[in-house]
């Protein structure tokens, strides 16, 4: 292991060597620079390896031949090694990225770059306050120098603004250091820290510390003293910005951390306060940003603010602090550096210009990996860090802070995912991305590093907290494997996917309890059946399979989860996967965004709920939800239930669903509707099984759920009635159906749960079938608007049969399986304590007829249009699963016991009373009885006899065509004017339309508008004037002083 001093020495030596070199030999100078930087990276890499693998001990490097405090000392420990490695690697990659511009600038530029990196390393390594100051000044000067060398002319003024602020900062820092020295008699951080106790209370020391602290914190660009930083981020060369964002911030953070060591816990609240304010403000201001680099700048400020919060929570986090802080830091550094490098490849500066990346799948993958890292999604380090942070904060009752962090994170996810949507969906600029290898390689290295770090954090989390490494779980690995296989043709991948899912089910089916078995069946086998439709796709379908498999993996992991961590990780994975799937739709960009935002919001609620429930415990089995302390239990229930209901689109939280489900691709809609929605129900099942009834302020929460569910069912159905778009209609219908299922759960009795399960199965079958069928029709007709179709029954008989069976089943008419659901429903409500919510649900039932009839009539019946006369039946692979579903539906209608009987017995564990009795084909409850086979036979016999009779008496019927209708002795003009389909239920709208005013949409729209407007107004604070920024800094100092001291 080489001495850390080489970090400084090598940089200086190389810089001076460059000065001696012939200025014309830029190539050689560049080579020297690269070699030096590589060497500089090698030094900490060796140390890190030593610490991690060989158990080396931290070393102190003494200078000037004397021991501290009489001389400056440097320290190389695990943290230092990691940070300097991060810094030097970023530097190396940036230098690589900067090849052309460095060679053009000549050796001066390279020297400044090396000095800057040296200074950052110095800040990390040194244990001496004044030395820290010197390194900071060096960093400032070299940073300003780098900016001065930037190509963008605007960078000049940005650099000057930076210098103004750094002058102020250095003044404060210097005075602070000197007074601290005066008060403590030492400049050595460790000595000062140990000397703190006697002197700590001295006001002069406190003041001195405040000056130092505020100066160093300002280096972290806190709100509002950060306008200068944004200007730099926006105008500097992206490689420099990467350096500032990743390397400089790392160094400054560590400096603040070291200083806090001196200051002690008394200063933690101030750090927290500054951090959280910055986090929230920066995220808010980023919301209306249109410039990519400035947006990244805001995001950087926010991330650093968050890490400052973590440092400020050191008193709680204790030993765990580095795990969390580093997790967030590396996520931020890797992602931000990567994104800045990417921004250099994109020609335009508007967010929508990033659509240029679309032609390069690897870069798209890089982009989304970075976004996922920034939003702390699994399996990246930030995810583990977020989980840990929230767990501890909730465990110690710092709930307000927790809420603020989550809100800020949601806003951040908002603008990042919006950006991602732009990238994938907006019109690509004419000029494509043509990254040179030296520009693309750093990006790839960053992506790779992100994934490796994800694995590494998984391992750490396994060692420290006993969690599973997510990347090692089979389903996720299987899903990620498709990333590597994406070059294969779609049908090969489809076969692999189906095989994998079916095989996994057969490998594991013995491990599930009856309830989970149902869900596992739907997720795995059901998913495989739905995937059959994907054979219809041609080509390679880049990106589809990783996304789909990620979603399925998430769902499988959800069913298999034992503790809250696994559950939550699975939840986020399935959310992410389904988001990608939904985003694939042609016009789905805004809907996918609203989906991911609602889902993440819900996920955060779940996260908070679990954390609250765990009360700080590292391991929290799902089953332990039942033993949560009574004081917090209702709140936990509330958080988790709301979180899950975001996924099932309960009313008020439903606005994401119609667009997301309707705009998705043909084979994706059944996945996200028929299968994905069940994840939310599974969550609710798990929640209610563990927690049962909860009371909050005397209100029984399941009762509230009951009302919410009833209104969801009613309004979902009502809204479906007024849709012109077939897929939107089905989507709204799903909202209603989920309302029914939720209602069953909230009834909190045996049959209610059985009914919910029945809806789970039924809804999976018929909604998958209907979405496929309607999707096939839409594919053939080129429209989703029902009134443009009509009369397709003859041309698309299979699709018609699927829809026919589907609507009979949904409407609950015997003899199909929907009736079973209704029958159990009646028995369940009879056993319930509540009566009034049923009124709403009774109204919802017949409303379903309206939209179902409209669906089948407007598409398949009525008048066929000119241009659709030659439409063909849906493609084989889309029709095949439909027919399978028809078979499944009939089978389930005949023998519901196959699926339900075991669950019925299983539910006795929770509700011993009120189960069903299964005798032969007859099903009996406490109230009534039902024999599906008998019903089927009776209906079939009557139907067939009558049909035969009609065939006999009507044997000479003349088949006529569509205009052979009586038309008041006239004839129809054209099919378009004869097909009664548009605004089909006009009188109904007149009577009950007031119920479907889009209040929820208005509310959420107003909220986002408000956030946007607030951010847009507030960011005018940064008026671009260097003097204003100086004033901001002074104001910041005064405010922090006033509030904190």
């Amino acid at each position, binding site marked *: 292991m080489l001495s850390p001093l080489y970090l400084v020495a090598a940089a200086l030596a190389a810089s001076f060597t460059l000065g001696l070199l012939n200025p014309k030999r830029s190539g050689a100078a560049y080579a020297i620079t690269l070699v030096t930087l590589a060497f500089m990276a090698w030094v900490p890499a060796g140390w890190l390896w030593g610490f991690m693998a060989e158990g080396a001990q931290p070393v102190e490097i003494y200078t000037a031949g004397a021991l501290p405090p009489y001389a400056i000392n440097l320290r190389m420990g695990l943290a230092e090694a990691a940070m300097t490695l991060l810094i030097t690697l970023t530097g190396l990659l940036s230098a690589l990225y900067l090849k052309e511009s460095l060679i053009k600038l000549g050796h001066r530029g390279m020297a400044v770059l090396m000095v800057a990196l040296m200074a950052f390393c110095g800040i990390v390594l040194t244990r001496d306050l004044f030395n820290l100051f010197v390194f900071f000044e060096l960093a400032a000067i070299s940073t300003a120098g780098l900016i001065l060398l930037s190509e963008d002319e605007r960078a000049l003024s940005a650099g000057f603004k930076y210098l103004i602020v750094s002058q102020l900062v250095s003044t404060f820092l210097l005075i602070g250091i000197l007074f601290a020295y005066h008060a403590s008699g030492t400049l050595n951080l460790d000595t000062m820290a140990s000397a703190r106790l006697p002197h700590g209370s001295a006001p002069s020391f406190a003041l001195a510390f405040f000056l130092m602290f505020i100066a160093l914190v300002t280096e972290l660009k806190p709100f509002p003293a950060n306008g200068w930083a944004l200007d730099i981020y926006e105008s500097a060369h992206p490689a420099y910005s990467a350096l500032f964002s990743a390397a400089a911030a790392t160094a400054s953070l560590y400096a603040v951390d070291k200083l806090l060591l001196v200051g002690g816990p008394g200063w933690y609240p101030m750090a927290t306060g500054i951090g959280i304010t910055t986090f929230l403000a920066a995220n808010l201001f980023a919301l209306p940003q249109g410039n990519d680099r400035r947006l990244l700048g805001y995001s950087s400020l926010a991330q650093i603010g968050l890490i400052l919060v973590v440092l400020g929570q050191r008193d709680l986090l204790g030993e765990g602090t580095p795990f969390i802080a580093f997790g967030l830091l590396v996520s931020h550094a890797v992602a931000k550096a990567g994104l800045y490098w990417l921004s250099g490849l994109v020609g335009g500066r508007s967010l929508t210009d990033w659509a240029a990346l679309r032609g390069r799948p690897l870069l798209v993958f890089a982009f989304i990996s970075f976004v996922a890292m920034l939003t702390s999604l699994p399996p990246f380090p930030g995810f583990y860090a977020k989980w840990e942070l929230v767990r501890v904060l909730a465990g110690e009752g710092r709930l307000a802070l927790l809420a603020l962090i989550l809100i800020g994170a949601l806003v951040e996810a908002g603008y990042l995912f919006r950006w991602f949507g732009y990238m994938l969906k907006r019109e690509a600029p004419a000029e494509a991305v043509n990254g040179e290898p030296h520009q693309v390689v750093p990006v790839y290295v960053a992506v790779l590093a992100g994934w490796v770090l994800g694995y590494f954090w998984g391992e750490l989390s396994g060692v420290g907290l006993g969690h599973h490494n997510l990347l090692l779980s089979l389903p996720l690995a299987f899903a990620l494997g498709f990333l590597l296989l994406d070059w294969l043709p779609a049908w090969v991948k489809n076969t692999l996917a189906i095989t994998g899912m079916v095989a996994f089910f057969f490998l594991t089916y013995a491990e599930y309890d009856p309830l989970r078995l149902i869900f596992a069946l739907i997720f795995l086998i059901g998913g495989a059946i739905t995937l059959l439709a994907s054979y219809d796709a041609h080509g390679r379908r880049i990106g589809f399979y990783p996304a789909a498999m990620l979603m399925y993996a998430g769902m499988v992991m959800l069913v298999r989860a034992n503790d809250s961590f696994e559950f939550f990780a699975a939840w986020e994975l399935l959310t992410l996967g389904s988001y990608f799937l939904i985003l694939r739709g042609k016009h789905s960009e805004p809907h996918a965004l609203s989906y991911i935002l609602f889902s993440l919001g819900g996920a955060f609620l779940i996260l908070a709920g679990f954390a609250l429930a765990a009360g700080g415990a590292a391991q929290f089995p799902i089953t332990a939800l039942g033993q949560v302390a009574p004081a917090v239990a209702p709140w936990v229930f509330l958080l988790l239930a709301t979180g899950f209901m975001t996924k099932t689109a309960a009313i008020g939280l439903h606005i994401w669903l119609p667009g997301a489900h309707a705009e998705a691709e043909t084979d994706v809609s059944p996945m996200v509707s028929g299968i994905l929605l069940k994840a939310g129900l599974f969550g609710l099942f798990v929640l209610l099984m563990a927690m049962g009834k909860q009371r909050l302020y005397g209100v029984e929460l399941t009762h509230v759920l009951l009302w919410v569910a009833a209104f969801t069912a009613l309004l979902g159905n009502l809204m479906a009635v007024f849709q012109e778009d077939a897929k939107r209609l089905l989507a709204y219908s799903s909202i209603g159906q989920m309302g029914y299922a939720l209602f069953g759960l909230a009834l909190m009795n045996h049959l209610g749960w059985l009914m919910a399960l029945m809806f789970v199965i039924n809804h999976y079958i018929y909604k998958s079938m209907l979405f496929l069928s309607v999707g096939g029709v839409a594919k053939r007709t080129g429209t989703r608007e029902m009134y443009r179709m009509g009369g397709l029954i003859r041309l698309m008989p299979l699709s018609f049969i699927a829809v026919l069976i589907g609507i009979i089943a949904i409407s609950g008419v015997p003899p199909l399986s929907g009736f079973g659901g209704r029958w159990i429903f009646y028995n369940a409500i009879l056993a319930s304590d509540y009566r009034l919510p049923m009124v709403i649900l009774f*109204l919802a039932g017949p409303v379903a*007829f309206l939209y179902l009839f409209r669906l089948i009539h407007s598409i398949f019946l009525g008048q066929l249009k000119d241009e659709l006369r030659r439409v063909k039946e849906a493609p084989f692979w889309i029709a095949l699963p439909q027919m399978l579903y028809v078979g499944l539906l009939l089978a389930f209608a005949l023998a519901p016991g196959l699926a339900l009987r075991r669950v019925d017995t299983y539910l006795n564990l929770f509700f011993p009373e009120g189960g069903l009795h299964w005798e032969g084909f007859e099903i009996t409850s406490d109230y009534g009885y039902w024999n599906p086979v008998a019903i089927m036979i009776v209906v079939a016999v009557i139907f067939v006899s009558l049909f035969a009779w009609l065939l006999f008496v009507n044997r000479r019927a003349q088949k006529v065509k569509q205009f052979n209708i009586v038309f008041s002795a006239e004839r129809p003009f054209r099919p378009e004017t004869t097909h009664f389909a548009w605004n089909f239920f006009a009188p109904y709208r007149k009577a*009950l339309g007031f119920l479907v005013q889009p209040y929820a949409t208005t509310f959420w729209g107003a909220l986002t508008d408000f956030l946007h407007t607030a951010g847009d107004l507030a960011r005018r604070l940064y008026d671009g004037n260097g003097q204003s920024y100086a004033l901001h800094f002074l104001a910041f100092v005064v405010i922090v002083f006033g509030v904190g001291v």
Partner: protein
Amino acid sequence: MQFDWMKIPYALLTLFIVVNFGMILTALVAKIAARVGRRRGIRIWQNYADLFKNYGLRSSITHGAMFYLGPVFRLTGGIGLLLFVPTIYGSYVFSNLSFAGDLILALYFIFFGTLGMALGAAESGHPHAAIGVSRGLSQVTTAELPLALAVFSVALQYHTLSVTAIVAAQQGGIEHWTLFTNPFAVAAAMLAFLGSMMRPPFDVVSAPQEIPIGPPTEYHSSYLAMMQTNRAIFPIAKIVVYMNLFFGGAASWPVFCLKVFLIYMVSVFIGVVFPRFRVEQSIRWFLIWALPLGVLAIVLV
């Protein structure tokens, strides 16, 4: 499972009786309504003539498979509804096929015919058919609501969903009828009854003046004959449900005939007096007048 094959001829016997009773009853009712208009009205056997005439028509057309199946669905719905409910209380012969399911089966089977008929009518491609269906479905959403509440209330009251058990609970005198033990439920249900009998003020579905007879516009010949058969069976079958739930059921055919006739007459009385509601008016009417009764019924039971 043991199945008593004799149930099939027994069920057919019920069917036979009810078809004929229905034919005559509807003619009788038409005569009564004619009398209100000071006419003599149709002959009591007119329905038979019409039925034979329609079967006797030599030609017919078809618009497609669903159009063809529509009347089959319709009549299956009527016959099924009749047979899933025991007709005569205490009689094994006339308990029909009620072993297949309870009250809920009957309630939901009502929609079987409606749905099939709506689909068949829609395939004819005639806009009036679609308009009629649109109106009918819109109206039924709120018209059925009070009935659903009443049924819920009755089931709560008797703690069972078995029709036989509900009738049994009402035996022993008129004061045991649900009509007196749970008057709000019966009131609500009877208002719903008005909505489902295709008589004024709730007959806008087939509104003969503006959308010539709505859904069945294109139906004729044997299709129409089947629908006529259903027209004879279905109201009776429905009234049987009402009778069993609210009016003590019937232990013999004479009582059956009397009760069915009287219950039928409720809708006739209202129908001949009141003019027609538009769809949105009837929706509001049911929500404002019938729904509160239903809610009262389930709250008070």
